[in-house]
């Protein structure tokens, strides 16, 4: 029983990371309607940017965080402007855009590899004493991760419900043509969407590195399928679904890992992903009509 509760606790932390990443990915898919395979690499970019800011300006991980989020967000806008925008204007098939993001993924991942090599990198975060909270055991670091996830989710909620930008995003992912017809400025909208999406990736990357302690240039790409799993379970293009999907994938993989070989932790997520795609590709929370 206590092992089960403990692993649920760990699952919540994993879910926090997946939720931040998943909401960002889902938001972008909803608005632009193609899968970004470079998303995981923006997470990695966030990790290495934190490292650079730490060594160049002596910023601590938490002090560097806001700056990293803004920088990865801008990197996403840059990718859109340089690589994707012309295809969108040409009316290219979404699959061509998807393959283009694979090119971007290769460039980011190998660029980081060229500079830092494949060895493991670490943030300097002092020791972290575990705290007992009811049946759960968390380190303060894990609680920070959890707290950041909650703040990020609230921010996305406020964005989607109460701002003009968020409403435009929802309109665009609901009915693309109608949104265009009523005069939503698509350039403004896609720029902001990419900024927010990849800024979330940057945040998720730093949070992932805080949680797992070490990373390499391929860490983010390796995490991408886990994010896909959460996003698709929740129904792709639906940010609120992604939050729930993250919770499910996070808890399932952590619980499964404590009862079986933990090497297969990711395989559980991938297997679940394939299952959901085959049985209910619209996501398990899809409501009637357009959710």
């Amino acid at each position, binding site marked *: 029983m206590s092992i089960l509760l403990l692993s649920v606790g760990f699952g919540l932390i994993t879910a926090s990371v997946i939720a931040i990443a998943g909401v960002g990915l889902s938001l972008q898919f909803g608005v632009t309607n193609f899968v970004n395979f470079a998303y995981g690499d923006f997470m990695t970019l966030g990790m290495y940017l934190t490292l650079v800011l730490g060594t160049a300006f002596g910023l601590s991980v938490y002090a560097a965080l806001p700056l990293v989020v803004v920088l990865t967000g801008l990197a996403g806008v840059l990718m859109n402007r340089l690589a994707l925008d012309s295809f969108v204007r040409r009316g290219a098939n979404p699959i*061509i855009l998807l393959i283009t993001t694979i090119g971007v993924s290769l460039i980011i991942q190998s660029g980081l590899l060229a500079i830092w090599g494949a060895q493991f990198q670490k943030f300097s975060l002092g020791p972290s004493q575990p705290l007992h909270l009811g049946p759960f055991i968390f380190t303060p670091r894990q609680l920070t991760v959890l707290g950041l996830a909650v703040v990020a989710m609230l921010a996305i909620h406020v964005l989607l419900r109460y701002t003009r930008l968020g409403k435009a995003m929802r309109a665009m992912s609901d009915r693309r043509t109608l949104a265009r017809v009523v005069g939503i400025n698509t350039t403004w909208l896609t720029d902001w969407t990419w900024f927010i999406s990849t800024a979330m990736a940057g945040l998720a990357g730093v949070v992932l590195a805080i949680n797992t302690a070490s990373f390499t240039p391929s860490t983010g790409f390796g995490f991408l399928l886990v994010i896909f799993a959460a996003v*698709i379970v929740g129904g792709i293009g639906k940010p609120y679904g992604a939050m729930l999907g993250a919770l499910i994938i996070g808890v399932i993989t952590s619980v499964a890992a404590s009862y079986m070989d933990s090497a297969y932790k990711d395989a559980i997520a991938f297997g679940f992903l394939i299952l959901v795609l085959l049985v209910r590709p619209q996501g398990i929370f899809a409501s009637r009509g357009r959710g």
Partner: protein
Amino acid sequence: MAALSYYVSVLAIFACIYSIITLGLNVQWGFAGILNFGVYAFVAIGAYTYALLTLGKPIPGASQTYILGLHLPFLVGLLAAGAVGGAVAWALGAVALRRLRSDYLAITTIAFSQILWLIAGNETWLANGWDGVSGIPQPFNGLLKLSFNDYNFFFLALSLVLLALVVWLAQVMLRTPFGRILRGVREDEVVVESFGRNVSSLKLRAFVIGAVLASVGGAMLAAYVGAFNPSAFLAGETFFVWAALLIGGSGNNWGAILGAVLVPVVFTEGTRFLPNIPSNPQLIEAFRYVIIGLLLILTLKFRSQGILPERPDRFERGAKRGARPSSTPIPSDDAGEPPHA
């Protein structure tokens, strides 16, 4: 001089093997528009099948553990590799191809590939885990007993024969009604369906044929290198094949071969002798991948059909002089509306 001709023959062998794999992807994507991101899963299936069938019994207490070890001849191993790859593709495709949109199929195939990778790495009893299998016998050298150099030319001849066979098959496929209907599926599934053809069965056949070719390529890779391990089928390898096909020209078999020669062989080997930087041994290799990523994007942007574009059918060439048919070799599944309306 001998060293140079040896070096060229090594490159030529890799070019043949990568060409076979890329032609397999061309059947799937270039002909039928199937977005398979699990190419290397099938290369690995072929390589492992071949290795486990042709290796001798594992010696107890030796450095590697694996199942089977039947010591079968080369041809049996090669055919079995193709058969197993085809059977796995059939099972995966039968469930996945019928239901999934392209991007979901891509995610499913990549997830399938990752699961396979985890199993190959973690189950040491199966095929020696992360260290992989080695000492795979060289085909026919037990009989021929050739010198190191001569054997290489023999293997090159073997690869060329196999490649010629595959090219012939792929070219025939292009011209037959089956090939034409596949291109129809690629351009518009609904139209093909309305002519009473079973689209998912057509796609399944193309998926299986492509997977058989990838597996045969994998078997040749294992036979030539003599070893195979999970690090040989990371997700990046699949994207390499994709880059090769798209840069060379998808839908055109000669384009696939050109891409396979350019991307993995010329690019990888051409930069091999650049001086290494001691502090960062991966620098050159990593830089190579950056260039390939850039090339991929630039190709899509400025020459979306690749270096050797798909040739229009004869009747189209006759009918519209100079006018090319719709240029993107891609199934259009975007109606400007969100998925699952």
